[in-house]
């Protein structure tokens, strides 16, 4: 049913905004609710980049502690709470990833695939629909654009590293990222477009 997943995401975002308001007032139960809702996704983001579960779980802890501290700074008009949490988790994970020695990082990167990992047996039908919606949007990108997005997102590579890897000028990679992100924005954030075409 076109539009349904996107509508669900927006309804969830409204709830998240209420929870953030309560967290800003010091209600730990609201933080727990946010954790229950987004903890699994936060761990997935960190785990994808860091691989080591213990380190990824430390990132989850740091992320929600930061949510608690900075809840008053959160502005629902600038983006959803889910986006806010995911940005914190991803930034923390990338910081850790880049703090590692380059040799270790190279070895880890070589072990990773650009493509998203397979579905978890824990996945609910709602989560499956969300995942399929994003994968469909990614598959709608031209191959060269999808490659740079997946390299940057799933492997945490910088544009310079991607350019070196695929043998293209840095400017070309930067351009492909810009075009891909613009298209994804249209596919994933548009209110009118419920599911990727």
């Amino acid at each position, binding site marked *: 049913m076109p539009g349904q997943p996107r509508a669900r995401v927006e309804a969830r975002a409204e709830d998240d905004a209420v929870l953030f308001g309560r967290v800003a*007032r*010091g209600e*730990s139960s609201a*933080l*727990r609710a946010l*954790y229950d809702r987004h*903890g*699994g*996704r936060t*761990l*997935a*983001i960190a*785990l*994808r980049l860091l691989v080591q579960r213990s380190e990824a*779980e*430390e990132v*989850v*802890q740091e992320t929600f*502690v930061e949510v*608690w*501290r900075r809840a008053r700074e959160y502005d629902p008009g*600038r*983006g*959803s709470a*889910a*986006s*806010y949490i*995911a*940005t914190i988790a*991803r*930034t923390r994970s990338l910081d850790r990833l880049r703090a590692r020695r380059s040799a270790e990082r190279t070895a880890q990167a070589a072990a990773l695939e650009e493509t*998203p*990992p*397979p*579905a*978890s047996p*824990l*996945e609910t039908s709602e*989560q499956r629909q969300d*995942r399929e*919606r*994003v*994968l469909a949007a*990614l598959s709608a990108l031209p191959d060269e654009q999808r490659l740079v*997005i997946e390299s*940057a*997102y799933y492997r*945490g*590579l*910088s544009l*310079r590293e991607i350019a070196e890897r695929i043998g293209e000028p840095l400017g070309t990679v*930067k351009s492909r*990222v*810009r075009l*891909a*992100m613009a298209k*994804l*924005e249209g596919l*994933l*954030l548009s209110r009118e477009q419920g599911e990727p075409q």
Partner: protein
Amino acid sequence: MTCAEFKASVHAYALGALDPQERDACAAHLASSQAHEGCGEALARAEQVVAELGWSLPVERPSPAVWAGIEQRLGLETAAARGGGGGRRWREGFAWVAVAAAVVALIWMSRREGELRLDAERARQVVAEAETARQRCAHDLQQAQGQLATQKQALALLMRPATQVVQLKPPEPSAGRVYHGSAIMNSGERRAFVLAGDLVPQSGKDYELWVIRGQQKLPAGLLRAGPSGTIVAEVDPKLLAPGPPDALAVTLEPEGGGNVPRGPILLVGAIPKT
């Protein structure tokens, strides 16, 4: 960095894919107080797209230790830095709960200590009673063993060819309790045993055995029977050393007995001269 340059890099910035130098330049541009041309909004949209990509990842379930760690960190944070009403209420509430729990624990420990003390006292009493019972049993056992040994010796003496059995009877018929007994006597071996029944214990009284030789009435010991009143006792061999006595008698004496018979004669028997 201009706003146009920032917006050209905003997607890579949101993806975290810029080199440190470019990343710092973007952050500085955002933080600058200059009038922006939609830089903040562009970043918000880019971050939203990046966050959406996270939905492509299979959900992982954090271990219980993760939330426990968050709570621990929040507790420290609340104590150290957050001065907000919610945090203060949380702290105060926790403090009151802790005080209440401590009071309840003290009351419980006090009552429990009293209960334990009573239990210990009861246990000590039980142990003391058990020890008394054990000593009583040991004493009874020792007496029974002594009686059994005496009975065996009496039986052995009875089997001897020269042994005589003498009946002990009340000196005159009595309307009350009828006492009866026997003496096993071997003059050659200078040994004798007295067997008696119905010598039931009497309060403040003791049964005493006498060796009678002529006018002499020699005390030969107290006869203390069990509840059945039956007893087998050996006559002190020293009293038989001069030769067979004329008679044996049992009297009822004040508790502890004496050197001279004062109470009534219950049993008496003359020893025949061989």
